[in-house]
């Protein structure tokens, strides 16, 4: 790419500068600082979302009983127990927080920002100020969602899917008032932030690659992030517009989603000739691709991590890229499988069914290629590797149960039951979150210059893995018994009382899984300050970020490296060492001991 080369000649002259405190740590345009800002915000919201999940589990295991310790000050008016409105808020906010404030900001905001310029040999994003804006647009979203917790009805009460008319008519439920409006405003900010971010990522990856780094030499991580950013740029405007339409329905008297002549809670809707199903189409047109937005970057990162710790090239690089593109492309034509029971024409149902099932093919290509990557390698059992391997097996469970409900006739039965809950938690927790842990253990040394403790990491892995399965696997059983989602009191009128012991077991596992994360939190902060020093390339990995100091200096590279080979040259017999970095341009690679003193002198 000639245009890219000429751009680098201009950027070569950038003089590293030391900005002041505010410009460096708060209103920074440095992609690394913004990446860490996203990382910390998302991890804090992860705690929040986890706490909400624990409260949901409490209600499923000990319905209508007082929550010890916190119950008395959380729900004074209810006598220390969860009320139905509060339960509604719990599952609404748990979904919203985990998807929009944790997983997407973690993958694209934190890892995307941190890794893209480093892995493609750029000094920063294509549009650094836009990048800063996309982080700071998250703050109005954070604040407005926090405010929603204090609005009447404890918080929004229509689920994270916000189906009208429950979400558009103020009288429909206790949480359909201001809380719902704040929820919409919050997501609107997230949407705009993510659209800006994704445009930035696409531009950066397409135009700022270092000389010699052509598209088929990109690490899979970058492929994953690129395809995800394209998905987001195409799908998210649809949701954003739908959010605005719902806001207009609520405040400006339009009638996109609310039908006429409904009497909801003694309130009559007049003169609005809307279609509730329109919202479902618009919502899922974004939110199904969002499922792939939440898994493709992790698939990329896991590919890189597997190769690094198996000391082997990736098996089938091109099929891996093509299968990712196929998953993304097909991801746009499967949204209807969320609406099989909405009254969709059976013909449309079968169209969405076949497209949904076909997505299993590129996904299985990825799984087989990962397996073949392990074959014949020299496998190092680091914590990061353990999380990556478990990502694959957990993702398989989530993927296979997806085929079960892609079959319409079975979906008629399991739709809106815990079978669905089990499925997407296997994909999003067993898949994405396990992958995120893998990536954190892998890139933490680059981010903070110190290693995470491996012993603590392995305990963290073991406990998380065991209790993750203890929590989510039995939910399949609940599901095929017909145990429904989103019920504050599924045991009402004595139904499902025989499932109470199973639910208690799930809750105990969920509590244990949450407790296991304490190990990670302690490890994270301890290692950040007192961990073993990492040096430039602790894992002997090939990609460009490992050729600079840990943490990398402002503007990343002293000289933009020239890339001479692909990212997976592990154990190449033509090379002495078992890894062969992508750039052997020694200018950017001189060995330096990573101490604060030498770092200062470099500047």
């Amino acid at each position: 790419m000639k245009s890219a080369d000429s751009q680098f000649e201009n950027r070569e002259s950038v003089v590293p500068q030391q900005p002041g405190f505010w410009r460096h740590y708060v209103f920074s345009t440095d992609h690394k600082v913004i990446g860490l800002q996203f990382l910390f915000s998302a991890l804090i919201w992860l705690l929040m979302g986890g706490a909400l999940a624990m409260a949901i589990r409490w209600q499923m295991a000990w319905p209508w009983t007082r929550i010890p310790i916190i119950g008395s000050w959380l729900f004074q008016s209810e006598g220390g127990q969860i009320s139905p409105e509060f339960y509604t808020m719990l599952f609404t906010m748990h979904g919203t927080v985990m998807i929009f404030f944790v997983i997407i900001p973690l993958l694209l905001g934190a890892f995307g920002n941190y890794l893209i310029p480093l892995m493609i040999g750029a000094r920063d994003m294509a549009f650094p100020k836009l990048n800063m804006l996309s982080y700071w647009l998250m703050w109005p979203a954070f604040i407005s969602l926090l405010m929603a917790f204090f609005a009447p009805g404890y918080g929004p009460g229509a689920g994270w899917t916000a189906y009208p008319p429950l979400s558009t008519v103020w009288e429909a439920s206790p949480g359909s008032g201001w809380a719902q409006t704040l929820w919409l405003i919050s997501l609107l900010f997230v949407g705009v932030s993510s659209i800006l971010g994704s445009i930035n990522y696409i531009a950066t990856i397409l135009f700022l690659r270092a000389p010699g780094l052509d598209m088929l030499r990109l690490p899979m991580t970058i492929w994953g992030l690129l395809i995800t950013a394209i998905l987001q740029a195409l799908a998210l405007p649809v949701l954003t517009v739908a959010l605005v339409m719902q806001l207009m329905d609520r405040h400006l008297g339009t009638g996109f989603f609310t039908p006429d002549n409904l009497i909801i809670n003694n309130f009559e809707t007049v003169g609005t000739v809307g279609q509730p199903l329109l919202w479902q189409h618009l919502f899922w047109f974004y939110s199904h691709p969002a499922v792939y937005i939440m898994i493709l970057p992790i698939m990329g990162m896991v590919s890189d991590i597997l190769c690094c710790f198996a000391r082997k090239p990736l098996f089938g690089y091109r099929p891996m890229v093509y299968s990712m593109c196929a998953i993304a492309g097909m991801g746009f034509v499967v949204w209807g499988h969320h609406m099989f029971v909405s009254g969709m024409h059976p013909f449309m149902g079968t169209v969405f069914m076949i497209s949904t099932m076909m997505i299993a093919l590129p996904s299985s290509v990825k799984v087989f290629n990962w397996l073949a990557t392990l074959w014949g390698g020299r496998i190092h059992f680091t914590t990061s590797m353990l999380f990556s391997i478990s990502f694959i097996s957990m993702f398989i469970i989530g993927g296979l149960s997806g085929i079960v409900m892609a079959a319409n006739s079975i979906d008629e039965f399991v739709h809106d039951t815990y079978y669905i809950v089990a499925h997407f938690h296997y994909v999003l927790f067993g898949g994405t979150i396990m992958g995120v842990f893998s990536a954190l253990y892998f890139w933490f040394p680059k981010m903070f210059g110190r290693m995470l403790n491996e012993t603590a990491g392995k305990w963290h892995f073991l406990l998380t893995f065991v209790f993750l399965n203890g929590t989510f696997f039995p939910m399949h059983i609940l599901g095929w018994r017909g145990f429904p989602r989103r019920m504050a009191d599924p045991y009402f009128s004595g139904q499902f009382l025989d499932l109470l012991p199973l639910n208690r077991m799930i809750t105990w596992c969920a509590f244990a899984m949450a407790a296991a994360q304490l190990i990670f939190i302690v490890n994270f902060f301890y290692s950040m300050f007192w961990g073993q020093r990492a040096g430039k390339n602790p894992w002997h990995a090939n990609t460009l970020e490992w050729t600079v100091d840990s943490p990398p200096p402002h503007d990343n590279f002293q000289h933009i490296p020239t890339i001479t080979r692909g990212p997976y040259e592990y154990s190449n017999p033509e090379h002495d060492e078992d890894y062969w970095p992508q750039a052997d341009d020694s200018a950017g690679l001189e060995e330096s001991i990573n101490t604060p003193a030498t770092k200062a002198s470099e500047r």
Partner: protein
Amino acid sequence: MLNLIGLLAQTESESLVPAAPEYRDGSYWFPEAASSFAKDVDPLFMLIFWVSLVFFAAIVGFMIYFVIKYRDRPGHKVEKSASHNTALEIAWSVLPGFLLIWFFVDGAAGFFNMRVTPGDAEQIQVIARQFNWEFHYPNGDATTELHLVRNRPVEFVMESRDVLHSFFVPAFRQKQDVVPGRYTYTWVKPTKEGIFRLYCTEYCGDSHSLMKTNVHVYNSQEERDQATFYPWEDETPIKNGQRLFNMKCSGCHNNNDVKKTGPGLGGIWGKMETLSDGSTVEVNDNYFRESLLNPGAKLVKGYANQMPSFQGKLNDDQIFWLRAYIKSLTPNAKIEDELNLPASEAREKVDTADGDKPAAE
């Protein structure tokens, strides 16, 4: 809020309340198969389940084998292996494709079967609202529990009066959203006699989990008629009231003292109720009548103003019958003798009697 043990105990001690229905749920496997759709769902589920299990075991088995065999240890070197293998890659992309086509054909056939109603089906209109179900039969009768005849296909024409709901009977394997502003359709052919659970599975508001009812499947039309469609005039006001209660009220009110969307109506006659403004009122004929015709006027504490008015929807006879039934739910309440006579005679007696004159207008 809800004492489950209390609920179970309650239903057994109350003589007028029918014994707790015997549901056949239990076990950690599928609910019992009570409709013709089980053959569309269960075998395909098991097929995909076993195929998935084989794939999962194979992949994870290989993975564990590789991870152990190729672990890093002194002297172990990376083996020379292909970076890709076109034949292998095509094989593992195409072969699962055939399995998927099999699942697709099987699933689509079942889906069409579950969505296309046979021509001879009986039509039942379903009205869903926060938080109860109402079923209207071809003969004009209506109930809040669903009564079906075994082996008779029945089509449900469903509408919602407020938000989204979803009609789900696990034993029938059938589910269909009920969408406001349009009709949705579904059908079943029950194949087993018994009582099954029907509940809403689309989140519909804070009392969503209370939106449950029963499906009764009878062996014959006669049995179904006995349960619901007897001539009014021959029965006592209490019996008629019970039938009306089941048609109009039981979606939101229990006939014992357990709270549902509205308060339970068992044992309330003569009781002092605390209202939402803090004042109290005695549950008597007048309060009963006012609550039916103008439900928001004196709201019991802890409940939303959610009940629709029955002004113009119930005639005086019906209000009288309902009053008789609800009064009979309080064990100590004085039941007038005429309430145990056939309805046609009871009405005349009350009209001519002085004093405690119920539902007079």
